[in-house]
């Protein structure tokens, strides 16, 4: 029984690998946008900012299935944009690996942006002014002062994105489907395994991996949060 718990089948390895791939890609792709929007929200005021923020945070409170459905309506083969992509270039996003990544990006975006925005807000603007008097342009100020000082928050945002992607279920199953080896990530594999009677050990194997990965990510995020608070003090 014990060894069985750590002997993974090829299909289970596929699900674990796929989950990590989706989560990593999502994290890498999300960061530039999240940093950009996080900076705008932290430093700029514009008309309609509350509406923009509300829209941005929507995936945080919407049921993930709803998010997946909306994505399908937009990017599905008959969707507003999906239709155009398919007609022009024959690109089909829904029910493919990219769809799993997109679903992960959309649901994690508000979390990451929030974390980055807060850490940029904590950067003392006086340092930015000092950099300007030393001849630094706005771009250089951002990359040499603002971003390094906000770095722990950015990293903790990245870990949040990674962790949220690992756990993503609802949006993925409705937008990307449950295709083994292509879109069947860890949570989806657990769900499928649960449907089959007598697969309790297999399910438990996947659950153990899921718990370990999420726990590592949360410990990492907590460690970075402490560093932010320490730097602030």
């Amino acid at each position, binding site marked *: 029984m014990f060894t069985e718990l750590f002997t993974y089948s090829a299909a289970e390895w596929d699900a674990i690998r796929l989950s990590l791939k989706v989560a990593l890609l999502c994290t890498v792709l999300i960061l530039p946008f999240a940093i950009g929007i996080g900076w705008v929200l932290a430093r700029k005021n514009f008309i309609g900012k509350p509406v923009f923020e509300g829209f941005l945070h929507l995936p945080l409170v919407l049921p993930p299935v709803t998010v997946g459905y909306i994505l399908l309506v937009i990017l599905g083969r008959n969707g507003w944009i999906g239709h155009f992509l398919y007609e022009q270039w024959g690109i089909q996003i829904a029910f493919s690996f990219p769809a799993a990544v997109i679903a992960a990006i959309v649901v994690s975006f508000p979390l990451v942006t929030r974390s980055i925005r807060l850490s940029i807000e904590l950067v003392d603007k006086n340092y930015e*002014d*000092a950099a300007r*008097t*030393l*001849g*630094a342009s*706005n771009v250089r100020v951002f990359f040499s*002062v603002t971003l390094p*000082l906000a770095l722990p928050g950015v990293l903790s945002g990245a870990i949040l994105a990674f962790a949220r992607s690992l756990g993503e279920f609802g949006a993925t199953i409705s937008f990307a489907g449950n295709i083994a080896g292509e879109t069947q990530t860890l949570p989806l594999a657990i769900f499928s395994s649960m449907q089959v009677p007598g697969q309790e050990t297999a399910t438990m194997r996947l659950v153990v991996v899921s718990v370990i990965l999420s726990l590592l990510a949360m410990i990492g995020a907590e460690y970075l949060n402490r560093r932010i608070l320490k730097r602030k003090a």
Partner: protein
Amino acid sequence: MKKVLELDIKKQLGSFSLNVQASIGNGITGIYGPSGHGKTSMLNAVAGLIRPDSGRIFLNDVCVYNADEHIHVPVHKRKIGYVFQDIRLFPHLSVEQNLRYGLKKFDAVKIGFNQVVEVLQINHLLAKKPSECSGGEKQRISIGRALLSGAQILMMDEPFSAVDIHLRNSIIPFLNAINRRFQIPMLIVSHDLPDLLSLTDHLLLLKNGNITALGRFQDLIQDENNIGIMKDAGLYNVFNLRVSDSLPAKNMVLLSNKSNSFQVQVLLQSLLQKVEIGKPIKVLIRPEDISISRQTVDQISLRNQIQGKIIKIFTRKGLSFCLVDAGEKVLVEITEASKQKMNLDRGTTVYCLFKSAALKIFE
């Protein structure tokens, strides 16, 4: 004298309005005013951190702000060395990286990195993080960083307030050394008059957002209004003297002005460094620490009894201020009652009496 900075600006900041016109030349200019009277706002406007509502600013004859022509040169193109009151060293960079932050690779180097490090004595700190440095060290690093950014003018906001009172006197020689060595004009803001006077005679007085006076301190104290502004801040007489003789037998040193028309004696111990004839020394004394008599007094412990003539006398809030020409202009504060009893007036010949210990000495 070449004009380094010319400004004529207005800015409304809440209920406070800044309205300054000034033309500032080379050398060190001290900007004095009580807290909240617009000193920092004035520096921020020159640096471009705040945008005036109207007016013009010229730096070395180049227009950096003109409201009518919509010119507002951004902060990073103004070449202003700004040493902030709260120092603002970048916490994530080492001391050396902080110093090099504004260093332009392709600019002709006017001020060299090694020179700055040497003058400010921060060589041993280069590898450290700012958080590992003391207050005085941080201050020197921040001055060095501003100098190395190719600044054409160095502005310092309250450079004495961030450091411990014991360290104040240690920062002053550095500022003097920078001015001498790098020939860079400096604007130094302070609400502490003695600190400013130990650095420069050239003052700009700010009150309620307006410049009330600009010029040599020795000239400014001839105006009653200026005295009123400076009185609360600790008004001092400032004399730029040289060591003219040492009197080791009496344990005293004789200091004189250029023409030897004004001499004071100070205690040998009050000089920190070796006494050399001809060495320049700045001496400060409070007007209320000087007494006036109409004759020399023999049976008295006071060594300094300097003869002069009253050239101006006026009364303010029950106190009489006599400006005495004794080779240097000496401001003396006495009570209204004494003035009447002694029958002092313009032209009266008097003796200024003070203890050697009342003198503040800057070498």
